[in-house]
């Protein structure tokens, strides 16, 4: 099939190209721009107005000329060819192989925008995923089909945490097919290299699909990257019955690419110049996580974003938090104290935790235990603050015990090795041994039967 070639490019502004005298162009159609140099660039139709089509070029517009360039419209949206051969492969941000392997012979072509999952068809996420991190498993539990972002900032070890989750994540007592889909948007070569070599070292690459848009790749390409990654994930999860973990990093770069396009279109900006539809756009990505009734596979998402100036109210983390089912917050002050992983458990949250823990999932005492640890740590943190103002001497004995608890909690519970894969039992045990340092009367949130059963002897004597 041949497509009409338009030589009528009349405007090139930022990433946008205006083609005139067009006919039969459809919204969201894939366009191919031919540069005078003979190079090809892909783009998509952002708007059609009578005989004009506005095209957003994924490759940027450098080298595009008003005369001498041409545009063809391909009569379809952007698609990804999928097959089980995707596993173990590395692609660029637009889905072209960059690992010197052969081209994929697709089983089928899928539109990368996907379709929304019918809420009626969803299955509620409730299966506990053990990540091996105490701060996550114990207190901010991840469950299968959840979308749980990591809110980080420049200079913090979010990549190491994400790689460790990818290495260690598993569902207890099951031997199911597991895959990792990795979507990189605008990260540096070194970061990308870290992930690739970590995946290679541990053999995880065999069951991984990587989409890499690096910092020096065209910025606008990033708009397609997470959608490609999720399309691959949906195929693996819902057609090949795999348990898929999707890691998307860094969503901040993605949002900035969206802002660039929006600014070039002179749209009325929302907060901080980001387009008013940022929420909708992000939800189209995040909501692709989940489980479907009657399907074995699942998609669990861990998007990573760096908060500009560590500011949680910045539109990107803010809107993300409204869509995702909780957040894991990386704290600079814990990082400064040398604690790895520097996860601040208090503002972190897993909304699906209560569905994933407790009897038959982790252990019966887990919900009470978690609630108590949160409360005691929060009280310890308050005591810490009070101590900095008034001095430790001014604290009541109970407050001093809580202060000690908070310090030990950070050192012994949150802190762990980069290759330390803690079981949930181990996590619970560490927590109990810390709680034993507090008077039993202070442990109001735990039922007596669990206290009798699990609280180490030391404090029973009191």
């Amino acid at each position, binding site marked *: 099939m041949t497509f009409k070639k338009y030589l009528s490019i009349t405007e090139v502004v930022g990433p946008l190209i205006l083609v005139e005298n067009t*006919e*039969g*162009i*459809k*919204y*969201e*159609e894939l366009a191919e721009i031919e540069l005078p140099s003979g190079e090809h660039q892909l783009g998509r139709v*952002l*708007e*059609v*107005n*009578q005989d004009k089509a506005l095209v957003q070029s994924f490759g940027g517009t450098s080298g595009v000329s008003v005369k001498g360039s041409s545009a063809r419209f391909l009569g379809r*949206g952007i698609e990804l060819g999928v097959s089980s051969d995707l596993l173990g492969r590395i692609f660029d941000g637009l889905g072209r192989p960059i690992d010197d392997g052969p081209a994929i012979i697709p089983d089928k072509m899928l*539109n990368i*925008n996907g*379709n*929304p*999952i*019918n*809420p*009626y*068809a*969803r*299955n*509620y*996420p409730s299966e506990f995923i053990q990540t091996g991190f105490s701060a996550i498993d114990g207190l901010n539990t991840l469950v299968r*089909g959840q979308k749980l972002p990591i809110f980080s900032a420049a200079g913090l070890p979010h990549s190491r945490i994400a790689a460790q989750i990818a290495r260690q994540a598993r569902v207890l007592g099951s031997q199911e097919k597991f895959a990792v889909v990795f979507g990189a948007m605008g990260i540096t070569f070194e970061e990308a290299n870290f992930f690739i070599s970590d995946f290679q070292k541990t053999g995880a690459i065999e069951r991984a699909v990587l989409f890499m848009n690096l910092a020096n790749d065209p910025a606008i390409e990033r708009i397609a990257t997470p959608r490609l990654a999720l399309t691959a994930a949906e195929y693996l999860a*819902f057609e090949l019955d795999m348990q898929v973990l999707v890691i998307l990093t860094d969503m901040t770069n993605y949002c900035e690419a969206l802002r660039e396009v929006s600014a070039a279109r002179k*749209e009325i900006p*929302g*907060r901080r110049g980001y387009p*008013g*539809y940022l*929420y*909708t756009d992000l*939800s*189209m990505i995040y*909501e692709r996580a*989940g489980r*479907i*009734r009657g*399907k074995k596979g699942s998609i669990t998402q861990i998007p990573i974003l760096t908060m500009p100036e560590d500011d949680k*109210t*910045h539109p990107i983390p*803010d*809107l993300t*938090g409204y*869509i995702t*089912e909780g*957040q894991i917050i990386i704290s600079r002050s814990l990082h400064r104290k040398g604690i790895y992983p520097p996860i601040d458990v*208090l*503002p972190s*949250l897993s909304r*699906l935790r209560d569905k994933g823990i407790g009897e038959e999932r982790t252990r019966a005492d887990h919900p009470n235990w978690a609630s108590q640890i949160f*409360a005691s740590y*929060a009280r310890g943190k308050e005591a810490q603050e009070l101590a900095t*103002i008034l001095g430790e001497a*001014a604290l*009541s004995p109970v407050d001093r015990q809580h202060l000690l608890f908070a310090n030990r909690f950070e050192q012994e519970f949150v802190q762990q090795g980069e290759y330390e894969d803690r079981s949930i039992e181990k996590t619970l045990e560490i927590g109990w041994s810390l709680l034993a340092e507090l008077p039993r009367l202070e442990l*109001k949130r735990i039922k007596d039967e669990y206290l009798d059963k699990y609280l180490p002897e030391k404090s029973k004597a009191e």
Partner: protein
Amino acid sequence: MEQIKGEIIRVSGPLVVAKGMNGAKMYDVVHVSAMELVGEIIELRGDRASIQVYEDTAGIGPGEPVTSTNQPLNVELGPGLIESIFDGIQRPLDKVMEKTGNLITRGVHVNALDRSKKWDFKASAKPGDKVAGGAILGSVKETTLVEHRIMVPPDVEGVIAEIKSGSFTIEETIARIKDKDGQSIEVSMLQKWPVRKGRPYQKRLAPDSLLSTGQRVIDTFFPVAKGGTASIPGPFGSGKTVVQHQLAKWADAEIIVYIGCGERGNEMTDVLLEFPELKDPKSGEPLMKRTVLVANTSNMPVAAREASIYTGITIAEYFRDMGLNVAVMADSTSRWAEALREISGRLEEMPGEEGYPAYLPTKAADFYERAGRVVCLGNDNREGTLTIIGAVSPPGGDLSDPVVQATLKVVKVYWGLDSKLAYRRHFPAINWLISYSLYLESLRDYFNKITGVDWLSLRNKAMAILEKEAELEEIVRLVGRDTLSPRDQLLLESAKSIREDFLHQIAFDPVDTYASFKKQQKLLTLILNIYEWNLDALERGAEPEKLMALSIRDEIAKAKYTPENQLEKIDALSLKAREEVDKL
């Protein structure tokens, strides 16, 4: 009438512009392209119509046809609404799934209500009765909890010529009414009503009774009246949705309409899976038997999100017209406002604050004003109420957000969620210092009647303790607790008890999730009494340390887990506390 057929000239996201639309009316529903995507006309200029399309417009382009249906956006009303889950334009998602599988594709046309299902109609009116719009013809037992009353459509008036009980589908004629011109009108159980127009009633009354929710901080401190409006603004993670779910579960309304507007898909699934399992505290029947769900999740088309709250409220009004108490939860109205903003931006309208259209406050006011306590149409002067509880999601928790401000201008109750409380895992994280309810005075008589005491003065006493605590906290932070007078220390102890033993309520605990008003009264009275007794004891010269360390405090902390059928245990606890204090 000739069909209006136009041609697309522009596509930009959910906005489509068509020419050749002469004769089309504002807000008429149109079908776009051969796929027949559903859209609504939102602007007319000459023969050009701007259309917001309720489905994804990818693959649509100029030259494709647009046909008008000549009808505004309607909802279908009749038996079959309860227990359903609809999308923003009332397509039943279970039927859509049967047709298109797990994913929602485009151009699906499904009737909102089942046409083939037979319902058992029992006539209560008889031939010869003079009836007008709203008069009750009979009823259908729709679920174990809902007696669905079949009413004469609002625009029909006359004398019943024929009416029959029996088993009918919603389209079959159940009655024939002869109007004043002698015309015979066939009435079926199915009615249609345009979503953007409030359903009529005889007159509106001021709300005068409590919508009991079983949530202590709400019922006791910041109550909402039946027929009132409330709003819950809060940053993410502060528990808006949990509060909304709790209200949907435990509010003593006969019908709940839950609108998931631009929120998470899993949350709707949660409601779908959980509500059939939960039991109504009064009847013991599953809560789903009184619930209608409207779900337009964040990844579903944005224009349908705009329509979803109107679809939900119209369904709610229909049940109100039967003389029922209806509560609507809209989660979240910010997403609705964002949908307005997106469409407004594409129409290139001059924006107001933060890019929101200048008509946002008007639209918000129109929506909340559809709440109320009314005398319904019909001749029996029955009363129905419609309560609206809207969640707002301000960016960064910033309350100067235009949506919050537009909402606060019209609602009477404000439950301010606070992320600091949420971090401390104090739930519901409703900050008692910033929240308010303007229904306290109008509910005064009601409260006095059900409690038998001057309830508001008790409530205000508790509130004063909490306020005083906030003041004292400042001092404690600067100079430490030991410097406070014994009286103040006792006050702090009592405030802590109000916070932890009363306000803090665990939604996931099987007992604590719901507290009847009686239980709330007993608990609060107990906590306040202990404070009074302590103060008396202090006057008598008791040692403050001993008063602070009462062993009964531990038992009071657990009093909220007292099951509803053992409330006398709280009375016993009160006696025990009295004894213990008196001993000192």
